[in-house]
């Protein structure tokens, strides 16, 4: 994985010193909250319902054991013993004290981490396929280009005060595990007709109150040109993105207003000029230098057989272990969705123990997925039984990756200043209803995503079943959306109708699933059935009880 050189290290150290000064000026009263706010946000520090919240960047979701130990240390020393992994592959701490934050950032810098640009109207932490470098279906590891983008976008003087936040995702596989089409901008590694590798660039995807699927603005951008191309898109957005209405300020609104042809024209005008200047070209040596950091570990020649084990182990293998590019190896998902738990939370003890497990089994990195799970990317198949046993002891072996209880949920009204409704208790309730593993396997792949407000941090638009919390005259209601997908077949879920109360939403989801089980044909996932039959039968079933109650 990437290692800071002297320049990266100095950059982050100076940033910590700068923020320490800003915090001192705030604590002494020299800065008021209004003046301090944009400064703290640029360093990932939010003021939430109950306390400050610090969001730490995990670039493209990759962590070393050493970094994971530091996160455990921070959870223990400065927080309440846990951290929350987010849908943007970051980690959040919910209870830090302002006076401690410079020390936390200094601790992070000591393991080559930071919280730069995890908030604010700037280019946010770059995300990537969590199976990067390990997936069997990958053209190239997307993380080298993600790292190049990370460096380019760090304190970019022109793009730190954009109309709104800007999220970039990168993937190197035809199978989209990074929700590319829901990002402000996405870079997809592709091969052209003559076998050259380059980038397809999409813009204008997004969720929030006006969801859009992104469209292609650059069909095939040469490797050396990628930063010039991205900078061109940013400049078009910075000049023309709306600033009169916060809800219309994301690039998706501009992209939709301009349409693909005009957007391409404007981007190409900038691109031609920037490329001609040459200063943003990424030379082959630089690409090679960054690539080298991400070279895969040397894979041993191992038999490709899956080890035997008891039923629990087999169940875990079935959903949480995925095909690796190297024979004898596997990718393992560590579910952070124990039944009845808080999606995405991990304790300091769990993080420390995982770091130990990585050392024991010579696993050099761990990934944070946008589905709020952790991933061990390079595991020897023969080690899987021992790893499973250890994960079981840690409460980290829930065999539900991709199943109905593997629910994405934002922090919701339990923590968040913006939320209208709670998300976590709804996720917990639904998970408990479907806790039976045989039933989960029968239901198969079904992605439930829950947001506590229209900002859609829980990706409800992209859920096979999406749940949106709304506030109606002080009472929490939950709207159902069906048919969304964040994968390569991206789609925005359709709204079913009137919302359900907090005690009705769980039963309504059960009825929707029951309808699927009745309607499905051979091999159909929930999403496939929905796409075939449409909303009507699901709607009839979901509101069934209310219909009876009304008569």
């Amino acid at each position: 994985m990437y290692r800071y050189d002297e320049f990266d290290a100095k950059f982050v150290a100076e940033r910590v010193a700068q923020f320490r000064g800003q915090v001192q000026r705030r604590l002494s009263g020299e800065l008021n909250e209004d003046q301090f706010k944009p400064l703290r946000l640029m360093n990932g520090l939010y003021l939430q319902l109950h306390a400050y919240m610090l969001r730490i960047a995990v670039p493209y979701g990759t962590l070393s054991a050493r970094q994971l130990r530091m996160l455990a240390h921070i959870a223990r020393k400065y927080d309440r013993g846990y951290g929350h992994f987010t849908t943007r592959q970051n980690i959040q701490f919910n209870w830090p004290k302002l006076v401690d934050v410079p020390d936390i950032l200094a601790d992070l810098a000591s393991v080559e981490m930071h919280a730069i640009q995890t908030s604010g109207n700037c280019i946010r932490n770059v995300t990537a396929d969590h199976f990067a470098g390990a997936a069997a279906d990958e053209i190239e590891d997307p993380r080298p280009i993600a790292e190049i983008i990370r460096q380019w976008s760090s304190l970019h003087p022109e793009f730190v005060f954009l109309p709104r936040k800007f999220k970039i995702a990168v993937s190197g596989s035809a199978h989209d595990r990074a929700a590319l089409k829901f990002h402000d901008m996405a870079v997809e590694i592709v091969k052209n007709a003559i076998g050259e590798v380059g980038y397809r660039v999409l813009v204008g995807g997004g969720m929030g109150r006006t969801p859009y699927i992104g469209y292609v603005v650059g069909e095939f951008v040469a490797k050396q040109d990628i930063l010039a191309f991205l900078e061109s898109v940013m400049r078009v957005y910075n000049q023309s993105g709306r600033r009169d209405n916060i809800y219309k300020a994301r690039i998706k609104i501009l992209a939709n207003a301009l349409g693909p042809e005009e957007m391409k024209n404007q981007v190409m005008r900038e691109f031609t000029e920037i490329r001609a200047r040459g200063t943003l070209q990424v030379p082959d040596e630089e690409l090679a230098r960054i690539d080298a950091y991400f070279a895969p570990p040397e894979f041993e020649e191992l038999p490709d057989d899956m080890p035997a084990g008891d039923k629990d182990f087999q169940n875990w293998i079935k959903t949480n272990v995925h095909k690796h590019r190297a024979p004898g190896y596997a990718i393992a998902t560590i579910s952070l969705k124990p039944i009845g738990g808080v999606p995405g939370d991990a304790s300091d003890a769990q993080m420390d123990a995982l770091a130990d497990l990585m050392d024991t089994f010579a696993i050099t990195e761990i990934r944070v997925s946008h589905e709020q799970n952790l991933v061990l990317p390079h595991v020897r198949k023969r080690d899987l039984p021992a790893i499973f046993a250890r994960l079981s002891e840690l409460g980290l072996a829930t065999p539900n990756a991709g199943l109905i209880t593997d629910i994405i949920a934002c922090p919701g009204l339990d923590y968040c200043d913006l939320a209208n409704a709670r998300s976590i208790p709804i996720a917990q309730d639904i998970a408990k209803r479907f806790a039976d593993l045989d039933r989960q396997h029968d239901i198969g792949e079904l992605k439930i995503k829950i947001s506590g407000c229209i900002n859609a941090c829980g990706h409800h638009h992209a859920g096979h079943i999406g749940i949106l919390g709304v506030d109606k005259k002080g009472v929490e209601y939950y709207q159902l959306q069906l048919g969304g997908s964040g994968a390569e077949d991206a789609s925005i879920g359709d709204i079913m109708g009137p919302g359900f109360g907090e005690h009705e939403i769980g039963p309504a989801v059960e009825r929707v699933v029951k309808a699927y089980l009745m309607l499905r044909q051979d091999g159909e996932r929930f999403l496939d059935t929905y796409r075939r039959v449409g909303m009507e039968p699901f709607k009839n079933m979901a509101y069934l009880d209310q219909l009876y109650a009304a008569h």
Partner: protein
Amino acid sequence: MPLIKGGSFVADPFVLIADEAPLPDVGGAIVSLTRFRKDRDTLMARNAPIGVRLKSDESPEQLGDDVHRLSVVVIEFPAFRDGRGFSWARMLRTRLNFTGEVRATGAFLYDQIAYLVRTGFDAFEVPDGFPLAEFNRALAEMSAVYQPSADGKKTIRDLRSGK
């Protein structure tokens, strides 16, 4: 309003002329884009330096070739959140090759000064009493940069490859 240029406070040789106000007989004048369009010929005939003050939604490209007849382009920051000015300054420097003064005015923050300098601003209207030491400190906080901009500063990549 105090003006910082070239690392120190300087006297402002320009006067900002309101749209309805008569043009002074002598001396540098800064006018709005609207006024510039209306009185372009008169301004050009005055034989004194001209400046145009652009609102944050006015691209310097709207000046056309006239930009090279100007001594100063002033870019307004109506609120610190409005970051269009950074792109306008950079466009002036790298697309239009404008070599005159690019001046920032308005609600920019201490912590934006370094970004302003990087994108091509070289003059700064600051609030009364703003200490020069603070201005210089803002420029010294981050010593190295990752990306090229209008200031021609060596990037970390340049430094890595020994350029």
